[in-house]
C-alpha cells in the first residue's frame, strides 16, 4: 500500500520545482536581452509581462487580451467537443465491432496523417472565411487524436477481464458496458489531452489566415505592425491558456478516474 500522507508533500515539491525552473528561465531570458545581442531581435520578459497586463485593460484591435483568449477558446471548444464526441464514438466502434473497423479504418488512416492546417484552403472554399471553417479545422485536429486513442483503448482491454466477465454470465452487451467502456477511459483521457493541445495549436493557425479576434490574430497583427512585444503577448497567452487547459484536463481525469490515479 502506498503512503497517502506523502502525496501532499510531493505536490508542493513539484510546484516549487516548476516555479524555480520558470523563474530561472525568465531570469536568463531577461539577462540575455539586457546584456547580449538577443535584445536586438527580442524583448525581455519584464516588458512582455508588463504589456500583457496592460493589454488586459487596453484593447489590441477591438478587444482586450482576455476577450481574444475567449474568442479562441470558444472556437477551440466548439471544434474540440464535436471532434471528441465523434472520435470517441468512432474509435470505440472500430475497436469493438469488426465490420466497423473494416469499413472506417482505411478511410480514417488516410485522413489521420494529413495535418489539419493543410485543410485550411479547402475549408475556406467549403465553409467560407467565417467561424465554421475554423471549427472544421479544429474538429479535424481533435478528431484524429481521440479516434486513435479510443480505438487503442478498446484493443488494449485485458482479454482475461472479458473472459472473467463471460464466465460470470455477462452477455455481449454487459461485457461492452461493464468491461470495455470503463477499460478504455484512461486511453480516451490521454487522447483528450493530446487533442486539446493540438486543437489549441490549430486555432492559432486558423486565426492567422482570416480573423479579427483571437490570439492567433493578435500574433499575426503584431507581425504586420512589426510589434515584437505584441507577438510575444500573443505567444504568452497561447502558452498560459494551453497550460491551463492541460491542467484542467488532468484535474477532470483525476476526479472522474480516481481509480486510475489513487495508489500510484
Amino acid at each position: 500500500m502506498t503512503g497517502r500522507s506523502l502525496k501532499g508533500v510531493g505536490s508542493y515539491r513539484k510546484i516549487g520545482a516548476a516555479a524555480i525552473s520558470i523563474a530561472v528561465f525568465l531570469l536568463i531570458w531577461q539577462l540575455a536581452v539586457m546584456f547580449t545581442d538577443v535584445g536586438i531581435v527580442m524583448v525581455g520578459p519584464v516588458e512582455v509581462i508588463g504589456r500583457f497586463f496592460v493589454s488586459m485593460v487596453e484593447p489590441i484591435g477591438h478587444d482586450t487580451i482576455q476577450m481574444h483568449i475567449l474568442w479562441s477558446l470558444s472556437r477551440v471548444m466548439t471544434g474540440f467537443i464535436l471532434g471528441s464526441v465523434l472520435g470517441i464514438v468512432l474509435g470505440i466502434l472500430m475497436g469493438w465491432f469488426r465490420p466497423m473497423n473494416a469499413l472506417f479504418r482505411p478511410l480514417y488512416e488516410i485522413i489521420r496523417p494529413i495535418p489539419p492546417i493543410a485543410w485550411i484552403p479547402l475549408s475556406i472554399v467549403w465553409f467560407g472565411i467565417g467561424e465554421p471553417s475554423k471549427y472544421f479545422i479544429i474538429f479535424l485536429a481533435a478528431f484524429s487524436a481521440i479516434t486513435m486513442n479510443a480505438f487503442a483503448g478498446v484493443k488494449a482491454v485485458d482479454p482475461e477481464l472479458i473472459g472473467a466477465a463471460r464466465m460470470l454470465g455477462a452477455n455481449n452487451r454487459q461485457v461492452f458496458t461493464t468491461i470495455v467502456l470503463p477499460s478504455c477511459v484512461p486511453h480516451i483521457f490521454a487522447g483528450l489531452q493530446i487533442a486539446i493541445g493540438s486543437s489549441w495549436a490549430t486555432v492559432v493557425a486558423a486565426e492567422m489566415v482570416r480573423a479579427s479576434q483571437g490570439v492567433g490574430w493578435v500574433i499575426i497583427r503584431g507581425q504586420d505592425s512589426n510589434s515584437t512585444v505584441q507577438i510575444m503577448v500573443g505567444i504568452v497567452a497561447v502558452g498560459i491558456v494551453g497550460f491551463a487547459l492541460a491542467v484542467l484536463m488532468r484535474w477532470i481525469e483525476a476526479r472522474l478516474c480516481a481509480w486510475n490515479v489513487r495508489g500510484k
Partner: protein
Amino acid sequence: MSETIVKVNHMTKKFGDLLVLNDVSFDVRRGEFLCIVGPTGCGKTTFLNCITKLYEPTSGEILINDKPVDLKQDNIAYIFQEYSTMSWLTVEQNVAFGLEIKKKPKDFIKKEVDEVLEMVGLTKYRDYYPSELSTSMLQRVVIARAFAVKPQLLLMDEPYGQLDVDLRFRLEDELLNLWRQTGTTVIFITHNIEEAVYLSQNILVLTNKPTTIKARLENTLPFPRNVTSPEFIKIRSEVTDLIKWW
C-alpha cells in the same frame, strides 16, 4: 442430481495443424478438489479454456450436470493466472460484479459481499481500488469475486504461480478453508507438484503435447496436510515420476 458434475468425453483441440489436446476423457465429482498437473506448455490452460468454451473443442463433448456447457445457466467461476480485477471498481464493487451481472437484488448482493469479504479478510479494504492493494489482496479480491456467486464449479488456472512461497502457502490454506465451507467443486491447474498434492483429492497428470491424460491419482491424505510427512513425499514423488518419464 448426478454425482458427476463435469464429464469430458474424447475432447480434442487443434489450432490449425497443431494438435494440442488429443482424445481427453475424465469426470469430476460434485464437491471434488481436482488438480491438473503437467509440464509447462503442455496445454493446461487450453484444457480449461475448452471446458469453459472460451475455446471451442475441435471434437468431443463436455457436459456439466449431464448437459452441454451453457455459461448463462451453469454457475461457473474462472480465476486466471493474472489478477484480473476491474481497476475502476472498488474491492466491494469487484466482489459484487458477478452478482450485479446476474441482476440479483441489492440487499442480497450486500449480504453476500459482506460475507465473502469477511471470509477473505478484506472487509476493511472494501472501499479501496485495486491500485491501492498488495498482490495477495488482489488475489483475494479475485477469489472473493469467484466465491460470491457461489459457483457450482470453480476453475483456477495457476492462480498462485507468480507469488512467493509464504504468500502461496497462506492463500492455499485460505482456498482450502473456502472450499470446505462452500463445498464448491474446484478444478485447479498448476505446474507445482507440491501444491497439487497439498490441495487436491485427485490429481490428473497430463503428458506433453499432444496432451493426453497420463494418470489419475487419488490423494486420500487427511487435511491439514504436512508437506514433510513420508506419505506426502511419497505421493509427490509418484507424480514427479509420472511427469518426468514419458
